[in-house]
């Protein structure tokens, strides 16, 4: 087990390194530069700004400096758009917000998605299955930029304690959380259903049924462990994605999370910020996947046997 974890960690570091290198190259290949204001800068000022941030050095020197600063000083560099603010500061302000929203929405997603997937699988091809799966399909098809304003107008404007947008009180988390939660719940429901169906068709379930095991016990004790595998594999990266922010939901609900920075840093060519964010997101994905692997290993005896 420990060997697997170490192995995965090693792979993770390699993935992060490659990811960061590709980002470093790609962001510099995009047309334009970070100092592209409304007004065109005179050449002497542009040159001065670039030299202030070492951007007029050769590619390799910049690349070496970047890693050197991260590895020796833990410095991810300054934001080139919000001058005087470091990338670490931006992430440390935005991450707690996205984390709170992400955890809340994932709780909603799990609470709605997994039970409805189980119910649908249990009542396979009956009206209850059809209706749950229809709703899930709608949930998957409706994009966040439709669901968010619809929820904002339908609920936020009409229920006094809900807020249409903004981030100044605890209840502001409800609508964005619900939006992200519903979207992920739809995926979870479908994955849980298919995972459960795989398990429910197996011989040991038939045996258990023949022995007279109650439906509740059949699902909770026998089927759930195996049936949740696809949902769990999805949950890891989905959780990493949600806690690192969603641009659409953040824009629609004016949430000061990480998603806005992702998009804005790219369009603004804020080189260091986008590199820092990609590295952070990559790290979250690696950790979440590792966590899911460990979890699957623990609940799935077949995996344990294989190792």
């Amino acid at each position, binding site marked *: 087990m420990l060997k697997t974890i170490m192995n995965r960690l090693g792979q993770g570091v390699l993935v992060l390194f490659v990811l960061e290198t590709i980002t470093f190259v790609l962001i510099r290949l995009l*047309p334009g530069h970070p100092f592209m204001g409304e007004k*065109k800068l005179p050449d002497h000022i542009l040159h001065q*700004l670039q030299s202030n941030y070492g951007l007029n050095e050769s590619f390799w020197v910049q690349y070496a400096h970047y890693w050197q600063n991260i590895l020796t000083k833990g410095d991810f560099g300054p934001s080139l758009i919000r001058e*005087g603010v470091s990338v670490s500061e931006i992430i440390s302000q935005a991450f707690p917000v996205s984390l709170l929203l992400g955890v809340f929405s994932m709780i909603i997603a799990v609470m709605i998605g997994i039970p409805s997937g189980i119910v649908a699988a249990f009542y396979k091809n009956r009206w209850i299955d059809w209706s749950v799966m229809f709703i899930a399909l709608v949930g998957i098809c409706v994009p966040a930029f439709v669901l968010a304003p619809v929820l904002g107008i339908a609920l936020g*404007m009409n229920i006094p304690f809900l807020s249409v*947008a903004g981030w100044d009180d605890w209840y502001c988390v409800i609508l964005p959380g619900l939006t992200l939660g519903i979207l992920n719940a739809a995926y979870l429901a479908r994955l849980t259903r298919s995972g459960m169906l795989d398990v429910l068709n197996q011989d040991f379930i038939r045996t258990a049924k023949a022995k007279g095991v109650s439906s509740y016990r059949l699902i909770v004790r026998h089927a759930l462990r195996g049936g949740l595998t696809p949902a769990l594999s999805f949950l890891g990266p989905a959780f990493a994605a949600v806690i690192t922010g969603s641009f659409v939901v953040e824009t629609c*609900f004016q949430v000061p999370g990480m998603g806005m920075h992702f998009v804005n840093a790219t369009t603004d060519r804020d080189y260091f910020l986008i590199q820092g964010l990609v590295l952070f997101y990559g790290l979250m994905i690696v950790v979440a996947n590792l966590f899911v692997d460990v979890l699957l290993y623990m609940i799935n005896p077949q995996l344990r046997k294989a190792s």
Partner: protein
Amino acid sequence: MRRNANKLFSPIILGILSLFCFVFNSCDRQSSVEKADKEDILLVGNNSEIQSLDPHIASSVADFKVIHSLFEGLLRGDNERDDLYHPGVASRWEMSDDAREWTFYLNSNIKWSDGKNLTAYDFEYAYHRLLHPQFGGRYADMLYVIKGAEQYNKNNRPYFLLSDIPNVSFDWATLRDLDWDKIEKHLDDPYKIEGLSDKESDLIWATLRADRDQGYPDLWGSSSIGVKAVDAHTLKLTLNDPMPQLPLLILHCTWFPVPKHVIEDQGGMLSRAGKWSKPGSLVSNGPFVLKEHQFNNYLEVRKNPLYRLADEISLNGVRFLPIVNGFTETRMFFDNKLHITNNVPPEMIGYAKSKSPLEFCEDDYYVSIFYRINTQKAPLNDEKVRKALSLAIDRDSLVKDVVRGAGTASFGFTPCGAGYETPHQITFNPQLARQLLAEAGYPEGKGFPAIELLTTSREVQKTMAEAIQGMWKKHLNIHIDIRSCEWTAYKQAQNSMNYDLCSSSWSGDYFDPLTFLDLWTKISGNNNTGWSHPDYEALIARAKSTVKLEDRMKVLAEAESLMLSQMPVLPLYWSKRVYLKKPQVRHWNPLLLDNHLIEKVSLQEQSK
């Protein structure tokens, strides 16, 4: 078992009950606006997250709005009219007869928010910093009207070194054209500089060598720079050209003072990453001081008790919310989360107007919307083609149907105002357009090559482009392609003139037509059309050196008329600022430059 069940469920029931109580309690919750009304805090939508509060680094409109509430310059604008100004840090000022020499006398009891005295040296330091060649101030060119400022900013060392030599007067007009890069490279093997006497030549070599040997010292002290703090309360500015309109120019943030003592303490003049402009260390001299800033959430300023007119400020503070999405902002306004929004998207104008006509505001704005034309590329290098394109645009329809009334169809390029009469030269005449196109060699649009219209990815720009594409197809029978790309790529294409037609806008930095007409000079970095005309250059230069206001405006109108007759741009409309405002907000008046004096705004009593 039953007892166990009771034990298990009673906390759950209690929990649910308390949640209900909480929710009911929440139903009585005051809205953000009601809460803010009680505390006298104004909630303002501010379009986007600020980039910096350092007046020398700031570059977005959102930055400037906050900076206007935090700092105060020599003069203060007016809350009702864009062409008026009042004493600010300076209590009085004098202009020389030729309008080149300006002396500002500072109020002696002005203090920074940390209690230190504000002096003329802070102004001198501020202008020094913004212009310093190693600082890289984006808006440094706003100060180029000052004598020597441009040369200093561009680190033109010979200009200062040679003009500072005692008892020798070099004529810079003749020296300017020398190959200074070559001279710089030959400091150790000098040659005789052509067109100069041996003595002059030797003097130049010796001066430049001495400069190098001293390690290129800062030249700010040169007598050729027109900024001088005569004493702690007197600031003298010498300008390149006569400029009776200087007071309107210096209302811009780039002319504000910065606290020398704080900046020197936190990284020094040239540090761009200094912490001095952050909450906790930002020291300012305006009506408000920075209290708190949460990225992408809000920025709050509070009344500055040390402000010279602190007693007259009714608000306790202002909260700026960086709401990028106009739809979100409008929803927040109707949910009582904002007093004033930044804008209403065109798609929402009808809804907002009908839902709340009294809260709907439509103010004129000093912004011109137009298409740049790449005049270097065929077929657009033909003046007739450009004119035909312009004549085939129905601007009234654009304003009515595309931007839903949030603008005025333009009949020239520069918006009216500041005593300027924009020449009426733009009309809609499809018949004449077809005739001109035929004269250019494309009768009925036949043989017209494929051209492309570049826009940003903003929805309204794409709709506008489609509308104009349709008009040209209908009236001229020509087809254009639309290419929309994200902002930085669009800007890059525009700056490198990698386009045929390009959607553009320009907002005035100060209240004077020159802020628009200066764009089309040859040396303007924002021209990007490839068009220039010697007569236009001469007219602009003449306007700059004309002291009498009416004469100056006439010359500028003549210049605009010339520019429009050659049509390097297609003016479309003058934008309006469309926003929503709660009725309790008082003294927020329509202003073309949108520089509101927030310290004059108040929230009406009876609403509290």
